[in-house]
């Protein structure tokens, strides 16, 4: 059952002149949720883009057992969807219109709106709970609703593998949970392979089967949440001191930064 959905061998990616990722190997298993964590600028987005062939890179990327160099961009888009960080839609575009555009890789010149297209758009809107917003312009939605509209677009692509770059950033705690629960539901009921970049370590610990911690373009730690989310790794990767305890509810590791609350600090301050 443990079969590779997406993998990289000797991946080298960079932007004009400087290499961000220099020789990375990775195998992501089918039907699993993987979270990528790491400090700002460590190369998480770069890795996601290289894995989805949006950035030119050296080395091999294997998708569904095939070298992506042998697949057309359209074929890749039918197997893998990726939602970039902070996308923006044209002013006035409605949610339904945006989600329908996720069908592009499945459409042909004479087949612009098949029954499968329509079914996929409906399903994506339902799964994301965006049905009631279908006719609304995206620029009139809240940040959280907007994010869900974009996720719906990626879902309408109906790919087996879904990559998301910081899908919960800017969302309140309720919407964060909603988006993550939606991804888990998609993973459990539809068997999708999910890879997501997260900044919230507790979310990574709770929702992912596997956590990959990146540091300056390399994989610094890789394993189950229990193995990766430890005080040592956090010190090495983020340079922070933190306590890691077991979440009393789920048992997943829970990160508590070892900072001193202001009230305690004020009390310790010599009075003037």
């Amino acid at each position, binding site marked *: 059952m443990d079969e590779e959905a997406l993998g990289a061998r000797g991946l080298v990616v960079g932007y004009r002149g400087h290499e961000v990722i220099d020789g990375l190997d990775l195998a992501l298993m089918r039907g699993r949720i993987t979270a990528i964590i790491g400090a700002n600028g460590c190369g998480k987005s770069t890795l996601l883009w290289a894995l989805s062939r949006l950035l030119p890179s050296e080395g091999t990327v294997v998708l569904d057992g095939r070298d992506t160099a042998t697949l057309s961009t359209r074929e890749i888009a039918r197997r893998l969807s990726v939602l970039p960080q902070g996308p923006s839609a044209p002013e006035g575009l409605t949610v*339904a219109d945006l989600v*329908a555009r996720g069908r*592009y890789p499945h459409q042909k*010149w004479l087949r612009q*709106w098949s029954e499968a297209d329509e079914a996929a758009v*409906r399903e994506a809107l339902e799964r994301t709970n965006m049905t009631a917003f279908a006719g609304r312009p995206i620029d009139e939605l809240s940040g959280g609703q907007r994010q869900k509209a974009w996720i719906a677009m990626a879902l309408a692509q109906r790919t087996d593998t879904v990559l998301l770059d910081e899908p919960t950033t800017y969302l309140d705690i309720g919407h964060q949970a909603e988006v993550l629960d939606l991804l888990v539901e998609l993973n459990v009921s*539809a068997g999708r392979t999910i890879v997501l970049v997260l900044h919230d370590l507790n979310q990574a610990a709770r929702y992912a089967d596997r956590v990959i911690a990146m540091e300056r373009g390399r994989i610094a730690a890789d394993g189950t949440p229990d193995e990766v989310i430890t005080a040592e790794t956090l010190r090495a990767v983020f340079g922070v001191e933190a306590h890691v305890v077991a979440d009393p509810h789920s048992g997943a590791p829970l990160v508590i930064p070892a900072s001193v609350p202001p009230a305690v600090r004020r009390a310790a301050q010599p009075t003037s």
Partner: protein
Amino acid sequence: MTASLDRGAMGPAADPALGRALDRALDRALGRAVRGPGFSARLAPRALLVASAALAVLLALAVASICFGDYPLRFDQVVDAIFGGSGGQSYIVQRFRLPRAVGGALAGALLGLSGAVFQTLARNVLASPDVLGVETGAALVTVILMTLGLTGTAALTGGAFAGAAVVTAAVYVLAYRRGINGMRLILVGIGVNACVTGGTSYVLMLAEVHTAERAHNWTLGGFNGLGWEQVAVLAAGLAVTLPLATGLAARLRTLSLGDGVARALGLPLERSRLLLVGTGVLAAAASVAVAGPVAFIALVAPQIARRLIGRPDGGLVTSAIFGALLAVAADFAGRQLAGDAEIPVGIVTALAGGPWLVYLLMKRGSRSTDG
């Protein structure tokens, strides 16, 4: 690739009331599905309605502009003259007024189409062939050719075309920085246009008076003197660019989501953009080469079309129809408003379009843009 489609059945069960609301929202936002064997598309009733209404108004305006003139004709006389007939009235209609109306409509349609393509491509309503240098480029080359005494239709049309293409290409290349940003494209366009217009003025200054006047008149843009020969060039331009643009419409829609998302959806980015820019330039250049620069139609027509359709992009054909409508209306107004004298259509559109641009800039200035 198809295996994943079966999984759709596992979606959450829909509440019927919500389902109907969704049906309506999808119909409104996307149009009705039209499907046959091996074929499927979406048809938006509202877009069809807007397009047909605009076509009807266009037709009425065209007939009116044929009826009115130094020698007024009644509707039935015009109809007679168009479908056969002979004598003075038919001569006036067939030789002058009909080609002028048809040519004007075609020139406007090409501009509307070009504007729709550029505005979507740059994700900015201020992007239009005027801003990108199609018109100034055509003007420079035309003025140079006229000064050199090369005044044949073929030379002028070809030259204007080449000028438009070269200046637009220059703007595009200068604005390219690992992708195209709408605002940068517009700012570079303004700079390049200023240089090219300066060059045109310099050439006009060097030219002898008679030539300079002729060239100057061309730069004002006008449909006066359009004959069937020119109509044929315009029709050919539209016959090539309209199918091309509609064929590329799905790519254009995808591109408007931004480079990252468009590539994630499997769009060959650079190739699509090149094809679309090429189509947009071709359309505008064909219009300018034949009818001279007519300002603002490319800017305004797509916006009217899209506002009425209720979708921010798409509506390529409707934009073309509105371009035609505006061109014929402006030409008609230019002939009627000034009594004996005739105001060239380019001046009418500039006078009417300027305030629109100011309005747009003010509106955009007051809210955030993603340029």
